[in-house]
C-alpha cells in the first residue's frame, strides 16, 4: 500500500480526474473532500463490504429454502 503524509487542505490526485483533499483533521477523524466525475461510485468501505457480503449470502439461497420462502409468501 502506498502511504502518503498530507496536511489540512492538501490533496492527492487519483488518475486524471479525481482529487481527494484533506478538509479537516479533528482528533482521530479526518474529513475528506472528493472531486470526481459524477458517475464515479464513492462509498464508505464498510458500507461497500456489507452490501457485497449480503449479496454473497443472498446468492447462496438453497432450493431447499424454497419451501420456507413459499410459507413466508403464503403468510404475507
Amino acid at each position: 500500500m502506498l502511504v502518503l503524509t498530507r496536511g489540512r487542505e492538501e490533496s492527492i490526485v487519483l488518475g486524471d480526474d479525481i482529487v481527494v483533499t484533506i478538509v479537516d483533521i479533528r482528533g482521530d477523524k479526518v474529513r475528506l473532500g472528493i472531486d470526481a466525475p459524477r458517475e464515479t461510485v464513492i462509498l464508505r468501505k464498510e458500507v461497500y463490504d456489507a452490501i457485497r457480503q449480503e449479496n454473497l449470502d443472498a446468492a447462496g439461497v438453497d432450493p431447499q429454502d424454497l419451501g420456507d420462502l413459499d410459507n413466508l409468501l403464503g403468510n404475507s
Partner: protein
Amino acid sequence: MKVETTRFGKVDVNDAEMIVFPSGILGFPECKQYTLVPHPGGGPCQWLQSCDTPEIAFVICEPQMFVPDYRINIRIEDLAPVGAISLDEARVWAIMRVPPRPEKPTLNLAGPLILNPTRRLGMQFVVNGGNWSHRHEIG
C-alpha cells in the same frame, strides 16, 4: 439461447429477455447477464438468474410489497449506468436473503437493484448514508 441453471434446469432465454448489468452486482463482477425466472411457488418474488453462472440466482421483489414506505433518493446522474432519465422510468427491486428457519428472511434495502425495463439494463445502487438496512427483516 438455453441457460443452464442449478435450480431450474435449462431455461430458454431470448435476447430480448436478457438483462445486462454492465458493472455486475457487488461481489459478482463477472456475472453481467441475467434473466428473470418466475418463482415456482408464485407470489411477489421472482428469481434473478445469472446466465453466466448456473448456481448464481437472487430472490428479488419489489420492496414496497413488504415495506410500503420504502423510498430512495437517487440523483439523475446515478441512473446513468442504466440509461434511465428518471426514477419513474426505472424499476426498483430488493434482493431477499432467505436463511434457514427460524431466522427471518431479510431484504437488502441499502443496496437495491435498479432496472431500466426499456433498455434491459440493471445496476446495484448503494444508498449512501440512508436509514435503510441491508438486513431489513420481513415475515
